[in-house]
């Protein structure tokens, strides 16, 4: 088990990681989900030993790692960039960690070729990384990480620099590849909640260097503990609609759980998919984004900026007026402190 306790990293007085406490079981894939700058890469690099935390401990099966240099840590890592050794061919690239670990060259080459076959690069073992496409280069990096058979595998947004179709295909391939890594703790950093829902056994939400929630992907998605968590776990981000409650009222129909709210200021978090076209509220279109087969329409409604998600391509122009319906009963209520209210 990989255990992290009280991990903290300050850079120029700013906390890049703060009070990180988490446990990761072997054979599980945990998605570290957070927006850009949330601290995902910093956390991965701290685990790998590429940066030294100011406080806290990293333990694998009870053994402390914090003082070990990166090359002595049983970790494999794939980064956002396609990192390979430009002076070595693909086979030698993948064999590199094995040779470093003292495996005989012939055996290392054979194991490297087997790993390359698993990622679909059996025919390219003699090529240099520079002769491969970006996707193929990243497959080489993945093969190099897998062949090491390290107890901890860190995948830091490995497909972020690939195009959409390739990313989808690779994600599925990676799930298949990782299915056989039974004893490995796999941490997968991502900014995409869909990836987390699709891939992870567990999800850890990171914001401003802190863990804001963890649990099973479905639970976290259905019941974000705070507005910050709701923002991280929803893409497009959840629509915050501030409101004020005077007097105790029962909002039993609101959200998925019955709640009773005392007087105070609140925010109703409404998912973009819970706003539909064809309703009574007249909203003005400010921007339309078509992503694949979906349309995200940015709206202005009574001074509120909202995003509506539709499962079809609908072309609208800025300034158009569209009638919308808000499924308020699906909303999540958060208190003034940003925490889930009335749960």
């Amino acid at each position, binding site marked *: 088990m990989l255990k992290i306790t009280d991990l903290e990293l300050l850079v120029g007085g700013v906390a890049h990681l703060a009070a990180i406490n988490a446990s990761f079981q072997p054979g599980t894939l945990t998605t570290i989900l957070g927006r850009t700058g949330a601290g995902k890469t910093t956390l991965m690099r701290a685990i*790998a*030993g*590429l940066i030294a935390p100011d406080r806290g401990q990293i333990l694998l099966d009870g053994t402390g790692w914090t003082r070990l*240099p*990166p*090359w*002595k840590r049983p*970790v*494999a*890592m794939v*980064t956002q*960039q396609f*990192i*390979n*050794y*430009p*002076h*070595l061919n693909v086979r030698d690239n993948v064999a*590199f*960690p094995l040779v*470093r*670990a003292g495996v005989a060259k012939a055996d290392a080459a054979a194991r490297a070729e087997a790993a390359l076959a698993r990622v679909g690069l059996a025919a390219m073992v003699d090529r240099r990384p520079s002769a491969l496409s970006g996707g193929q280069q990243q497959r080489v*990096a993945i093969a*190099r990480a897998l062949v*090491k058979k390290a107890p901890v595998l860190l995948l830091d947004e490995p497909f972020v620099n690939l195009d959409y179709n390739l990313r989808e295909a690779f994600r599925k391939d990676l799930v298949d590849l990782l299915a056989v890594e039974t004893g490995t703790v796999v941490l997968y950093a991502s900014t995409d909640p869909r990836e987390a829902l699709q891939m992870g056994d567990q999800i850890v939400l990171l914001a401003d260097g802190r863990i804001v929630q963890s649990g099973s992907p479905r639970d976290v998605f259905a019941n974000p503990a705070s507005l910050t968590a709701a923002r991280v776990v929803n893409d497009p981000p959840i629509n915050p609609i501030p409101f004020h409650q005077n007097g105790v009222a029962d909002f039993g129909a609101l959200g998925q759980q019955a709640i009773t709210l005392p007087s105070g200021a609140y925010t109703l978090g409404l998912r973009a998919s819970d706003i539909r076209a064809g309703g009574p509220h007249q909203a003005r279109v400010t921007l339309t984004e078509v992503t694949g087969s979906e349309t995200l329409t940015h709206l202005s409604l009574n001074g509120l900026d909202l995003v509506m998600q539709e499962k079809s391509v609908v072309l609208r122009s800025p300034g158009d007026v569209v009638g919308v319906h808000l499924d308020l009963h699906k909303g999540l209520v958060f208190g003034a402190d940003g925490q889930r209210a009335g749960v």
Partner: protein
Amino acid sequence: MYRQKYLFLLPGLLVLVAIILFPLLFTIRVSFSSWDVYNPGLNWIGGENYGRLWEDARYWQALGRLTLLSVTTVLIQYVLGFALALMVWRDLAARRLFRVLFLIPMMTTPVVMSVLWRTIFHESLGPLNPILESLGIGAAPWLSSAGWAFAAVVIVEVWQWTPFMFLLLLAGLLSLPNEPYLAAKIDGAGPVRTFFSVTFPMLGAISVGAILIRLIEASKIMETVYVLTSGGPGTSTETSSYYIYIRGMRDFQIGYSAALSLTYLIIMIVALTVIAKLLVRALVKDAA
């Protein structure tokens, strides 16, 4: 119309022929003559000079000494230059300081530098022997013993040209991508292993270039030997260039020194070509 483009090349070609080809062709012609202090002119004597050269043990000894001197100095320069470049590679302040500091020996005129070193090596008046004595190492007959004189030439050459290696290799190190170093750390390679598995192979092409440039320059060594030892004691530090200079300019055997020069040129071209191919095969992965 298409062929007229060659007309535009003609002036440049003529200059090239004049400055390169003519001296070479003239030297070839001179090498087949008996031109010396008594019989100046291009009197044809066939391959007599080349026959004499073949039996000239002093020439071949000078060539062997030159080979030893070149290989020794360039290897030391490479190792020292690489070590110094690695030391300051990651340190910006040190890099700036050493880059300026190390330019000084390179900017020094070889003759001036050799005079300075001759003073330093002076066995009774120079500062080196007292320093060695104070350190308990003992004085050395720097310029009066064959072995020590050879060592003195090596030291001066290394002192003057290590900065060249340093600057070339530092430029190479600074051009290396950072990503493979990150990968090497993750893949279990410590600093020493990273050097041999990542830094050294990635600097292969630059290393070959630097070594070859220095070998070409070292094979022409003349000023240092002339000022520092005059080829002595005896002929113990005499190199090919210096021997050719003695035969040509001191003994005025123009025909014979032309034959010596041409032979030397051919040997150097062949040797450096072979060395270049071997170095590329050994150090540059793309050539494999």
